[in-house]
């Protein structure tokens, strides 16, 4: 199916990698202090290093092309979207005949065919469809996403892969995340070393909030075409519910309905400027994409991947903003880690428990009396068999009533085992804590 770079063809020509060799086999004034020049560096990059690119859209196409041309040969790509006509102006791995097909699959095939020796493995799915074992198999993850939810998810996943020995991070469990983002003429590239530098969650405030208008303005004093569209989207749709379903921004029937109703409203208030495209833009929250911004941000990301993979140079520390609205402007600064970050400040704490026959109330007693915790009225939840369970929550009457029975149940009966993780919220801590149950060894194993 795919032709692999099996040692023949242009790969063997001396000159293909001569520029990389100059960087990787010699030292220089800007090298990372620990850098050891050697042919091993290029060898690792080409033969061992396994990359995951998330998103095969505007940024993803650029990223895959850059990384493949840099010599990375083992690249995986995930994207759940299919190709649309409007993608073709900038997502250059796709052609008109590809419309309707998986972005990941078409992009993978294009790169694998076009760049000798490089093999791209496509995954036509959501990032949430894969588990830890999958993500743990990569050296570096690169994201070119337009969704904050997806960014937060992969961030949380990579943080959950970290392992700690006596509270100290085991660096071999660390998988760097290089995150690129663009919005029109603005973009950013950042290097996230989970557990070490600021993560997505630490800097959630940096993401621009969705544009929203006050409800009363939309309802009574609309001035902009957007107000009219929002009115139909937020108020009129649920009132009239033409198809008895939530709005689907990809359904032309839905967009047409909203367009017509928004027009009526605009006429009523003497507002001009409603177009089908604007309706689509407001409903789907589309920000126009600019090919050159994607190219610059992807190049910055790919350079960071190269630096991390080879240790040839100190990586970006850690957040670069780029703006080419008016001339070109870039600025790099060190985004700070948040001490109480919901994601990366979470170092799971172990709690010693006699065994599976201990009751939930015994666990709560430990949390309240052990000098390590000294909690006041902890609320406990857990994920058991893939489902969220509220084990006990004393502060909310309706939950307390329904979960009280759990207090007398044994941990075993509740589906908890040695190593199970629980979320514990208490007024004594600014965040929900993650605790890991540790059962005392059964007597049989005590003699060695």
């Amino acid at each position, binding site marked *: 199916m795919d032709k692999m770079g099996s040692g023949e063809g242009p790969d063997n020509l001396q000159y293909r990698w001569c520029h990389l060799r100059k960087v990787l086999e010699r030292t220089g004034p800007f090298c990372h202090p620990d850098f050891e020049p050697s042919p091993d560096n290029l060898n690792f990059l080409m033969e061992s290093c396994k990359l995951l690119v998330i998103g095969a859209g505007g940024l993803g196409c650029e990223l895959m092309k850059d990384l493949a041309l840099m010599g990375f040969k083992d690249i995986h790509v995930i994207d759940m979207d299919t190709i649309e006509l409007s993608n073709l102006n900038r997502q250059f791995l796709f052609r008109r005949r590809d419309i309707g097909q998986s972005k990941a699959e078409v992009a993978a095939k294009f790169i694998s065919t076009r760049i000798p020796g490089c093999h791209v493995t496509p995954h036509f799915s959501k990032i949430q469809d894969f588990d830890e074992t999958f993500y743990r198999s990569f050296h570096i993850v690169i994201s070119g996403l337009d969704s904050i939810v997806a960014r937060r998810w992969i961030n949380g996943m990579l943080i959950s892969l970290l392992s700690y020995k006596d509270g100290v991070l085991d660096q071999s469990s660390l998988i760097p995340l290089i995150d690129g983002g663009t919005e029109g003429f603005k973009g950013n590239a950042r290097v996230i070393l989970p557990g070490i530098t600021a993560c997505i969650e630490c800097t959630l405030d940096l993401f621009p909030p969705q544009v929203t208008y006050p409800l009363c303005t939309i309802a009574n004093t609309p001035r902009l075409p957007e107000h009219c569209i929002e009115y139909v989207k937020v108020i009129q749709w649920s009132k009239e519910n033409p198809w008895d379903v939530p709005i689907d921004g990809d359904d032309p029937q839905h967009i047409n309905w909203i367009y017509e109703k928004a027009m009526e409203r605009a006429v009523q208030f003497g507002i001009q400027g409603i177009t089908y495209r604007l309706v689509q833009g407001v409903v789907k929250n589309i920000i126009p994409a600019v090919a050159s911004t994607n190219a610059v941000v992807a190049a910055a990301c790919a350079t960071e991947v190269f630096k991390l993979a080879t240790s040839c140079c100190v990586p970006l520390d850690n957040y670069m903003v780029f703006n080419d609205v008016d001339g070109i402007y870039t600025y790099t600064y060190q985004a700070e880690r948040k001490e109480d970050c919901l994601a990366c400040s979470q170092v799971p704490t172990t709690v010693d428990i006699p065994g599976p026959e201990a009751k939930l109330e015994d666990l709560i007693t430990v949390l309240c009396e052990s000098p390590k915790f000294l909690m006041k009225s902890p609320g406990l939840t857990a994920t058991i068999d893939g489902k969220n369970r509220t084990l006990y929550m004393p502060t909310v009457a*309706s939950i307390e009533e329904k979960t009280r029975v759990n207090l007398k149940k044994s941990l075993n009966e509740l589906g908890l085992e040695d190593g199970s993780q629980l979320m514990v919220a208490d007024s004594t801590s600014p965040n929900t804590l993650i605790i890991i149950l540790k059962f005392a060894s059964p007597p049989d194993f005590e003699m060695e």
Partner: protein
Amino acid sequence: MIKLFSLKQQKKDGETAPKTGNQKKPSAAQLRITKDINELNLPKTCNTEFPDPDDLLTFKLIICPDEGFYRGGRFSFSFKVGPNYPHEPPKVKCETPVYHPNIDLEGNVCLNILREDWKPVLTINSIVYGLQYLFLEPNPEDPLNKEAAEVLQNNRRLFEQNVQKAMRGGYVGSVYFERCLK
């Protein structure tokens, strides 16, 4: 700066990695809502109902104002917390038909922190207080129910009578309100 791949000659297969068990990890939204719910500090006029205690993302808030125009009424709000919480606010709707300048007949609520002024530092508790305040100080400046707002602005007595009429169950103008007295 750390040098990441000192062990870089080795390939990654996953089996060398430490086993932490294949548990589903709680999302940041889940961690945050657990905290928000556990720390709910409700005024005595408010109460929450969780139809499914395992689902902390879906619940109702009941407000029974003990002063102001709406004293004696009982108003139910539905809360839906999405996966992007707290980057995005929860979706809140009023389920009790109410004659109120800032709540329309479909249950949409005009409260700034539910939309344009939402910030991740705000909590479920902030919204509870915001909603409670709407009943104490209905605001005719930001109307969602324009008729009610005009009455409140021009004739407070009539507004008070209309609120009473609506809460007892009956017509205000051409709109019928179901009884919602406690």
